[in-house]
């Protein structure tokens, strides 16, 4: 019995490990091609670099953060600190439910609401609003747990010193700093790797210039990988390979930071 369990586990471990290695290693050498990080793609994506995709991903994520951090933080503060027990249970299970909705459904919502009904079209702003709709419940779900784990005595102590509601909340945020940073990193990872909603609401396969205003469409890393693999032949594949290993490396960095933060929270 034990041997069977061990064999299965090792097989899974080896499989997972080789998936990571086989994704990262073949792509790393393209990082050293001149201009990989700084050039526009040329000759139908067989030469040049992936700069516009990196730029698009970065700007998209910054916009998502600008929306998600205030709304998510305030929302989780309300659930953890202000709402009645009953309302907080309802809101939390709503956030949990929204977390299990497939991402393509968010894409459809964004297409109908932001792109068509609000007239924002396929654009940077539609994509970031769609991604934010998806990331906010994710953020709240995890942030509430960290805010709740601040001990009651600490709260009462601050109140006894004469702090008002706002100051008490600030103290709670400060003392759950590591947890909130963990949440932020996980949200970042989620927003960075999500593909389907951006594909529908904001991405184009190829743009000759960088987006200059919010209503311009963008290129992003995940959608470019998809587009290259599905539409272009073997000669362009190296570019997708490079982007795939770059994305995976970034995710590994994000998760390493999460692990460090988690160790610090647990002492």
């Amino acid at each position, binding site marked *: 019995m*034990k041997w069977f*369990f061990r064999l*299965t*586990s090792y097989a*899974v*471990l080896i499989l*997972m490990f080789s*998936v*990571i290695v*086989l*994704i990262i290693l073949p792509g790393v050498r393209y990082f050293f091609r001149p201009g990989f990080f700084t050039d526009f793609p040329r000759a139908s994506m067989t030469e040049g670099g992936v700069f516009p995709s990196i730029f698009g991903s970065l700007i998209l994520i910054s916009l998502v953060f600008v929306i998600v951090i205030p709304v998510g*933080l*305030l*929302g989780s*503060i309300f659930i953890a*600190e202000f*709402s009645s027990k009953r309302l907080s249970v309802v*809101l939390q*299970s709503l*956030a*949990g*439910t929204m977390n*299990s*909705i*497939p*991402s*393509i*459904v968010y*894409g*459809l919502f964004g*297409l*109908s*609401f932001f792109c*068509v009904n609000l007239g924002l079209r396929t654009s940077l702003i539609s994509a970031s609003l769609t991604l934010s709709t998806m990331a906010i*419940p994710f953020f709240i779900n995890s942030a509430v747990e960290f805010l709740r784990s601040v001990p009651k005595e600490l709260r009462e102590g601050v109140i006894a010193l004469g702090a*008002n*509601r*706002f100051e008490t*909340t600030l103290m709670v945020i400060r003392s759950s700093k590591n947890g909130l940073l963990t949440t932020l990193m996980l949200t970042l*990872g989620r927003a960075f*790797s999500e*593909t*389907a909603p951006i*594909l*529908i609401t904001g991405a184009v396969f190829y743009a000759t210039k960088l987006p200059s205003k919010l209503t311009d469409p963008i290129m992003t890393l*995940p*959608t470019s*990988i*998809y587009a290259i*693999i*599905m539409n272009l032949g073997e000669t362009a594949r190296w570019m997708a390979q490079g982007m*795939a290993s770059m*994305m*995976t490396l970034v*995710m*590994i960095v*994000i*998760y390493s930071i*999460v*692990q460090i933060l988690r160790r610090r929270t647990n002492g």
Partner: protein
Amino acid sequence: MKKIGETLFKSIVFTAAILVAAALFGIIFFLFSESLRAMKEIGWDLFSTEWFPVWEKPDFGIRTMLLNSIILTLWTSFVVFSIGIIVALYLHSYANKREKELMLRVLEYVSGIPSVVLGFFGIVIVAPILLKAGAWTGQNFFNASFMLSVLTLPFMISLSYQSLEKVPKEISEAAVSIGARDFAVMIVELRYAMPGIVNAMMSVFNRIFGETMIVLMVAGGSNLLVRSFFDPIRPLTATLGSELGEVEVKSLHYSALFFIGFLLLAISLAITLLTNYIVRWRERWIRG
């Protein structure tokens, strides 16, 4: 003055929380209202077998895609559930500290790989191997199922492992003290950890059913009912992913695609509600 500031602050945080609830109802509302046209004009023919959206006399039947989606999800979930629980049990009952740490770390990294990159992996590495092994196309049911397992196994393992770790020591010790061997102890622990494991199963099932990029890239894309492991298939989400970019806004095709989205949403909400119900019921049953 202090009072006003507090009320203001309270109302701001309240608005932020209400936004979440509003978003859920917004999603349901928009998907439903966009799919109304298809429901009215096509009616029950939406569940016929043929999907030819841009022909002169278009057909909007989703039955084949729906069945393919369900078969793919059931089979992959079955594989992921069984392997996931075995590995979680190994980590919980046999593994030493080093093994645990290594395994959990590797799994966490894999769970961070974006799904589009896994789709890329399926095309570039798995598909050629399948071709060499004699399949007539590299992008098929097996490939999709395999990549979906790689995507969801980390969740399944770490979530079930966590709920196994939460089983109180007294329970396992009580089982040992009345003469239970390894296997029987595991059964006892599994029963106690069931609510957590059911929850893990639910998220895995939902994830597989709703995953778009992987099936879009590696499932093959032919709208035929799957008959063998190496048949190319097209699940519901793949159709959404590939056709939404080119569809004419507000056309019948657009509305039919939204109907598919609405169906996905309804199924995922139903599974979530059902699981919450089961988990609560089991918890009551365990705690007495």
